């Protein structure tokens, strides 16, 4: 809708203010990441002698490399598992009519009403009993079922012409091969956007890793950064800001690679980082 001039001016003014409110703190943090130690307590927002020193300190003073490995490894495995399981489930629901289907679907959707804050105590106890505490397994396995992903994929599957399945089976492909050779390749951008959203959700997760990790063995970046803040605070502003900058890069990078679709998928996911 085209607005008249005074409204346009007000609109731009509002949006500019809001954008500045978002960008200025982010810029201050990134700039501080490049400040040498003797400039960190200066009111000049940019570094006069930019340095990579804070990033080096990060890997030297804390097991940042180990945290990075734990976060990247568990994220890849977990998102991979989430996607495969969601694809199988959505296919099972969309492909066949069978008794009990609606009940099963209701159970999957019902799980959306039970966020894992409500199940954390028993799962925590379970991790202890299984001997999974402080391991990648504890970070990955309890979080593999993603009802919203099933919901989203099922809608795409339902939009598929059933003739496509028949054609694939006529060519001698069973339902299993039809899924991976015909259906999944045709999901294209919807699937990549879903992967990005799940990736960001997992990469940024704090609460569960905080509960089930208690050593560097499995600790993730988000928990590590928080702990570093508690231990060092004013002594390590530079490395801390370098840390939050580095930690944020992967999520920002995948977002900019798939921008528009990711925003749409985020909106329908109910996940908000």
């Amino acid at each position, binding site marked *: 809708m085209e607005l008249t001039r005074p409204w346009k001016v007000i609109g731009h003014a509002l*949006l500019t203010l809001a954008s500045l409110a978002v960008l200025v703190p982010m810029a201050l943090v990134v700039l501080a990441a490049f400040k040498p130690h003797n400039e960190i307590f200066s009111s000049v927002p940019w570094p006069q002698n930019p340095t990579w020193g804070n990033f080096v300190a990060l890997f030297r003073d804390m097991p940042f490399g180990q945290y990075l490995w734990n976060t990247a490894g568990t994220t890849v495995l977990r998102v991979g598992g989430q996607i495969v399981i969601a694809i199988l489930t959505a*296919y099972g629901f969309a492909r066949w009519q069978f008794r009990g289907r609606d009940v099963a679907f209701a159970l999957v959707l019902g799980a959306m009403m039970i966020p894992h804050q409500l199940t954390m105590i*028993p799962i925590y106890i379970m991790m202890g009993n299984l001997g999974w505490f402080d391991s990648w397994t504890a970070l990955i396995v309890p979080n593999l079922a993603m009802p919203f992903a099933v919901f989203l994929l099922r809608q795409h599957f339902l939009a598929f012409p059933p003739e496509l399945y028949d054609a694939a089976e006529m060519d001698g492909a069973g339902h299993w091969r039809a899924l991976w050779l015909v259906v999944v390749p045709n999901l294209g951008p919807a699937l990549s956007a879903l992967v990005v959203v799940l990736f960001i959700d997992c990469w940024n997760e704090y609460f569960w890793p905080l509960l089930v990790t208690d050593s560097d063995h499995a600790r993730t970046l988000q928990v590590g950064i928080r702990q570093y803040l508690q231990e060092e605070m004013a002594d390590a502003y530079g490395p801390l800001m370098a840390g939050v900058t580095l930690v944020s890069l992967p999520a920002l990078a995948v977002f900019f690679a798939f921008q528009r679709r990711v925003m749409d998928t985020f909106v329908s996911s109910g996940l908000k980082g």
Partner: protein
Amino acid sequence: MTPSGRARPSIAWAYLAPILVLMAVFTYWPFIHTLYLSFVSWNLNPGQPTKWVGLANYEGVAGSPLFAAAARNTLIYIAAGIPLKVLLPIPLAVAVWSFGAGGHVYRTILFLPTLLSFVVVAVAWSWLLSPLGGYMQQFLGLFGLGMPNLLADPDWAIWVVLGLSSWKILGFNMLLYLAGLASINRHYIEAMRLDGAGDWAVLRHLIWPLLTPTTFFVLVSTVVFTIQQVFTPIDVMTQGGPSNATTNLFYMVYQYTFLTFNVGYGAAGTVLLFVLLLFVTLVKVGLLDRHVQYKQ
């Protein structure tokens, strides 16, 4: 080979098996287990026996000062967050929408905080606001002003957490409104224009009423967000303090269970939280259905 849509049910169930097993073990069973734990006394030590105490945990939680503070703060987080989290995004979204392609830059910029983790946001703001040489202190120093220790002040700390969570969710909610705006039929606007309606009339009498369902949806999903996600900035910045000024119901559960090892209280608090969330979620699902229908 089976015709499309018909198969031996066993095949379909095989596809569903992984998620059903996972949900049974990691969603539904723990949920029931939580109910059980809310009736026993236990200290999280596997060697320690549990003792059935009936409703004592619920009475204990409901009567505790921590619960009073957490419930009050949860209300503040929800109610006081509405202007910034639910209302402010409306004019922003309308402006972005009216600019068409020219508004995309704003949309992307305002969405950035959604991509950052809450830990990152909280750590960054801890530095910006720190009275121990944080950036705001340096900046205010230029004008001879001092930086108060906001996070240590019981009257201020909750507003800091609230401001930061608003900062984080603003762009996301704006996107929800944009989705609502995109579904408005342009012919209505043109018709009003032909009748000589000005910008204000269109905004007031057409856009605003048509955005009402979206507004409710944003409100409810923001309440869920506030109950669930504000845990992280609380834990990073204040650990619920000073003197319980920033704790909320979810953080209270964490405090009871994992900091003071009173599992029964924690589980009872979880059940209370569930009742609250269930209510909000049911409203949300109802709205989501309508929301989807509006789009089609």
